[in-house]
């Protein structure tokens, strides 16, 4: 993109320069000296080229067709051969400088072709000058040197501009990429934080209550809340682990916390592992985690994976009291997990079922 911008700008400037030179500097000598008809054809060709380039620039087209260079060289030959006798590099030679500008105008983005064409143009003019003989070599040298050096100078400036523009564009792109990476990292961190806050459930209010001394740690209800929060936290830690069977991994994590509390937990697994989406897993494990948090004595956790459903159940000795918290899992639309809790013959059973089909 940077290249195109530089060339387009340069061409626009050159267009103005060429137009001015052709109208103001070259028309008077062309009219004022006895040129052959070839000179007028050359003038016409060059005007045509000017028109085409102006059309391209006007249409915001970045590149012009390279065959315009050939047209310009043809005009150079016609103009040189149409000169009055022994007029090369004299005031009557209207075309020498103008052709150089034209070559620059149409070939500015092709430096090698441009220099070659310019060389050919100079060589032909010099050859014509030598062929005519008896011209002033000093004057010719000055004209050639001043004309071409100016044009080559413009070419060099264009290349320098081009290089700087490329460097600037590269730096800007790198800067943009860095900004994007930074924004992405920030977003990810926010998502993670929001996700954790959403799933921390009972923990944050509990910590606040403890800090405010609104609850007493010697109170049994508080200790129940603590164990619920501990299981929730442990499950949350396990949630993002990369393991072959994430559901079993999370269940094991919850079982581990309960066992630390002195509950004897047995875990039975049936059926092979199948992929379970994270939200579903969360809802499958949550009832079990809550039940384990309040369990005492013995508990049995089971996972059953059949062809059509996944069932996670915990059966434990029915507790005397169940903490009143039934905080719905924050964030996220309801998924197809049904939870059922029932108490029979001194046992409480909580089961979460998810239909895979």
């Amino acid at each position, binding site marked *: 993109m940077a290249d195109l911008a530089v060339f387009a700008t340069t061409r626009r400037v050159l267009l103005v320069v060429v137009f001015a030179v052709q109208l103001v500097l070259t028309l008077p000598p062309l009219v004022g000296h006895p040129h052959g008809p070839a000179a007028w054809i050359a003038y016409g060709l060059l005007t045509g080229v000017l028109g085409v380039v102006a059309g391209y620039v006007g249409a915001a087209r970045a590149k012009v067709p390279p065959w315009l260079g050939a047209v310009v060289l043809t005009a150079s030959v016609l103009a040189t051969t149409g000169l009055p006798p022994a007029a090369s590099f004299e005031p009557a030679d209207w075309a020498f400088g103008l052709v150089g500008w034209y070559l620059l105008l149409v070939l500015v983005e092709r430096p090698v072709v441009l220099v070659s064409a310019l060389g050919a143009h100079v060589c032909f003019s010099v050859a014509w000058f030598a062929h005519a003989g008896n011209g002033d070599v000093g004057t010719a040298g000055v004209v050639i040197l001043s004309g071409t050096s100016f044009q080559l100078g413009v070419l060099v400036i264009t290349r320098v501009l081009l290089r700087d523009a490329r460097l600037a564009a590269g730096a800007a792109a790198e800067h943009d990429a860095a900004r994007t990476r930074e924004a992405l990292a920030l977003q990810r961190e926010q998502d993670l934080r929001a996700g954790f806050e959403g799933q921390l459930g009972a923990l944050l209010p509990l910590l606040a209550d403890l800090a405010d001394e609104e609850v007493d740690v010697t109170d049994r209800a508080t200790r129940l809340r603590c164990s619920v929060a501990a299981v929730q936290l442990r499950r949350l830690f396990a949630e993002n682990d990369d393991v072959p069977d994430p559901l079993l991994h999370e269940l094991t994590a919850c079982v581990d916390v309960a066992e630390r509390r002195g509950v004897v937990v*047995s875990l*039975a*697994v*049936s*059926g*092979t592992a199948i992929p379970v989406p994270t939200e579903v897993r969360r809802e499958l494990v949550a009832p079990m985690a809550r039940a384990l948090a309040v369990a005492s004595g013995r508990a*049995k956790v*089971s996972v*059953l*994976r*059949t*062809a059509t459903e996944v*069932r996670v*159940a915990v*059966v434990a000795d029915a507790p005397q009291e169940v903490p009143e918290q039934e905080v719905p899992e924050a964030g996220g639309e309801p998924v197809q997990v049904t939870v059922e809790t*029932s108490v*029979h*013959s001194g*046992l409480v*059973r909580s*089961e979460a079922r998810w239909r895979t089909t």
Partner: protein
Amino acid sequence: MADHVTAVVVDDHPVVRAGVAHWLSTEDVELVASGEDPGVAWTGPGATADVVVLDLHLGGVAPATSALRKLVEDGRKVVVYSMRADDEIVLQCLELGALSYLTKAEGADHLVGAVKAAAKGQSYTPPALAGALAGDRSETRPALSPRETEVLVEWFQSESKEFVAQRLNITLSTVNSHLERIRVKYAAIGRQAPTKAALVARAIQDGLIGLDDL
């Protein structure tokens, strides 16, 4: 005489043999022989024992399924007693004709129950086995009724037949007959074995299951 049950234990760990012997003795089951090689079930007093309690992992890497097959083909009543609880091996043992499959995590009650049931030629379905059956996704699995599936699952989950009975509002014996019907359905599929044939024949005779259910 009908109550007197004899058993032989094949296990490569002396402590397991001693433990099983103790459990069985408290429930009036006589352990007539034990050893670390299936040979004890073929020779001496072990050859006539009513029930063979067989450990599937006798030191080697591969499970002793060939020993199980030979015993079953000879009409012996085998209770498999194994460390492993993966469904595939459990179902394979049933297919071969074992009357029960117990994991070593399951306690004395289940072992004694399984041995006593096996002595009468009956199946015994402990919770882990129920789980394996409930999670069976093989194409050859028999069709179970919704109620049978529910009994199987809840028994696996709760390990308490009282709980299952109360929850499903059925009697304890109905829970047992559901489990038995399931096992008969399993016995009726796959390869033939004397124990499996006997299970099916007896179930039909007792009216537990009709020919149409199979």
